[in-house]
């Protein structure tokens, strides 16, 4: 176990190092002067550029620049926000990350159980009617870009249907916009979260349920299922005790991977629903040429993803006796 953890942590740090190098050098590899970009492109005066160069330490050799940049990142010193004067990148990103995390959490809470159930049903009824229906559903859902789904939910579900007498009389509230206060509490946010979370759910749903289905089908074909059935225990027990235990294990990894996926999807969804999360912040940062902010967001995202993968791998290893921990 120790060896496994060591390997996994080494891998984690190595990947982290490489990701941070990638993000760092994105601004260096490309032709052009990052200071000029940050200063506002060709309109910037030479003094402004020089000032920013000095401020960012761009005159130091590259390795030193990288080290100080990583040091600043780890120390929470992420610089001033250019896109919103007066704000600190750190405060801004932490606040928005929290909001995105809430949205992601609601989306995961909605999508994971649902997609597991759908995937298991489809797998158990391989090529039969339930499977075909679920496959068609997930295929068509996975094919809709988030912004199409989002616009559909806003215009049809929230505005057209949500204002119908029936929906009104049911007392449901369909948020046609999720432009909540950035510092609102989770409880205040929740009513505005479910529709964008649902949009994210639709895509995740297809993804996770298709993999779950494949897992169930694969496990059902294994010899140990026959062994279990021939013990004379009920089929239901065979499924619950034997098949699902093995079929659902890889789902842990799948969910971790889908977090990275979810983050991409949330960028669009947050934008469409006007939700104050990390994704919409990123778009603003890039629109307003705040490359330092964008860089910091990228680092935060990568950190989240790498940690999610790390935890998923460890959880998988702990739960799965087949993984050699030695």
């Amino acid at each position, binding site marked *: 176990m120790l060896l496994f953890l060591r390997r996994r942590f080494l*891998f984690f740090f*190595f*990947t*982290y*190092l*490489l*990701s941070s*190098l*990638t*993000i760092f050098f*994105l*601004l260096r590899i*490309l*032709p*052009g002067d990052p200071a000029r*970009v940050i200063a506002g*492109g*060709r309109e910037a005066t030479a003094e402004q550029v020089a000032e920013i160069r000095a401020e960012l330490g761009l005159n130091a050799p590259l390795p030193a620049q990288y080290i100080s940049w990583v040091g600043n990142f780890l120390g929470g010193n992420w610089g001033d926000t250019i896109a919103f004067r007066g704000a600190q990148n750190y405060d801004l990103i932490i606040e928005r990350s929290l909001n995105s995390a809430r949205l992601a959490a609601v989306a995961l809470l909605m999508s994971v159980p649902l997609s597991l159930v759908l995937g298991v049903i489809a797998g158990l009824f391989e090529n039969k009617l339930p499977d075909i229906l679920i496959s068609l559903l997930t*295929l*068509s859902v*996975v*094919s*809709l*870009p*988030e*912004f*199409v789904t989002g*616009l559909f939910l806003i*215009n049809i579900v929230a505005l057209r249907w949500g204002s119908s007498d029936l929906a009104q009389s049911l007392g449901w509230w369909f948020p046609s916009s999720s432009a909540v206060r950035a510092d609102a509490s989770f409880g205040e946010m929740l009513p505005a979260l479910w529709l964008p979370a649902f949009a994210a759910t639709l895509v995740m749903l297809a993804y996770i349920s298709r993999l779950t289905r494949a897992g169930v089908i694969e496990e059902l074909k294994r010899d140990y299922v026959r062994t279990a059935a021939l013990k004379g225990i009920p089929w239901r027990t065979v499924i619950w005790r034997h098949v699902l235990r093995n079929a659902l294990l890889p789902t842990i990894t799948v969910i971790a991977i889908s977090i*990275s*996926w979810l*983050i*991409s*999807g949330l*960028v*669009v969804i947050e*934008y469409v629903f006007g939700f104050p999360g990390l994704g919409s912040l*990123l*778009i603003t*940062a*890039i*629109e307003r*040429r705040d*490359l330092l902010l*964008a*860089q910091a*967001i*990228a680092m935060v*995202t*990568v950190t989240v*993803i*790498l940690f999610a*993968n790390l935890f998923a791998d460890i959880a998988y290893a702990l739960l799965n006796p087949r993984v050699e921990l030695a």
Partner: protein
Amino acid sequence: MRSVRVSRVYAAFKRSAGAQLRHPQSAVGTLAVAFFLVLALFGAQLAPHPNPNDQSHAARLPPTLDIGALHLGEHPFGTDRLGRDVYSRVILGAGSIFRIAGLGTLISVLAGSALGLFMGYQGGWIDEVIGRVIDALLAIPALLLALVLVGIVRNLDFEAGSWQAALADNVILLVISLLYIPIVARVARSATLDIRTREFVEAAEVRGESKAYIIFREILPSVVPSLVVEASLRFSYAIFLVASLGFLGFGARPPSPDWGLMVNENRGGFYQLTPWALEFPALAIAVLVIAVNLMSDGIRRALQKGA
């Protein structure tokens, strides 16, 4: 020798084409993709109004399309707020999405395959190092990387006509290639690893074949099916990405008939006035992605079972 081998791979595809047609979903998907491809290639000839910014029509005309009567009419999908024929723009948009997503997929599949084959066959520390770099790249979500890259490149100022400017003009293409090369390489690598331990590869080593011969003559044909499946999958993601970037305003610029951009331009107040100007491009994106996914599923079924 080569021609025979190529015909072998081709035969596998022909078999798969047969399997495709037996599966109605995949057949529909493949036909639809082919249809969009025709639109992409001959859009300028097929569109009634080949200039995407042609405003010589009355604005905000509703669609004349009558599916029941199989009647297209003057403006089948209506005209948008600026008096442009939505039907023509949707047709022309296919070209833009195929040019970027299709070409990006092609580049990434070619380069990624070569890289993955090399890594998988070579093994050792080179494979290890490139593999870790790929892992690191893959930890950054695609859209995020795309946004950052586009954001940077858009703000760089190049001399018109320089190669950097050409690069900046094709930044989305560049982004798709950069994003998908590692993914394809990873797939090609694992397929290669699977094949390279096969004894026919060792037989080739035992007769002293060169590295290139072994990679391209012995291993590649067996890896092609996985690559084709991956390519179709990549294509559908690329369409997704291009449309999303267009929608977020980081893709094509107005007055380009980019579908994602068209959705974004018409999603505000004009959704009430000219819903068709949003609905048809959105529909086009959805139909194309569904079609590519159906086709991809079919190819996977056909190639990964057989061959």
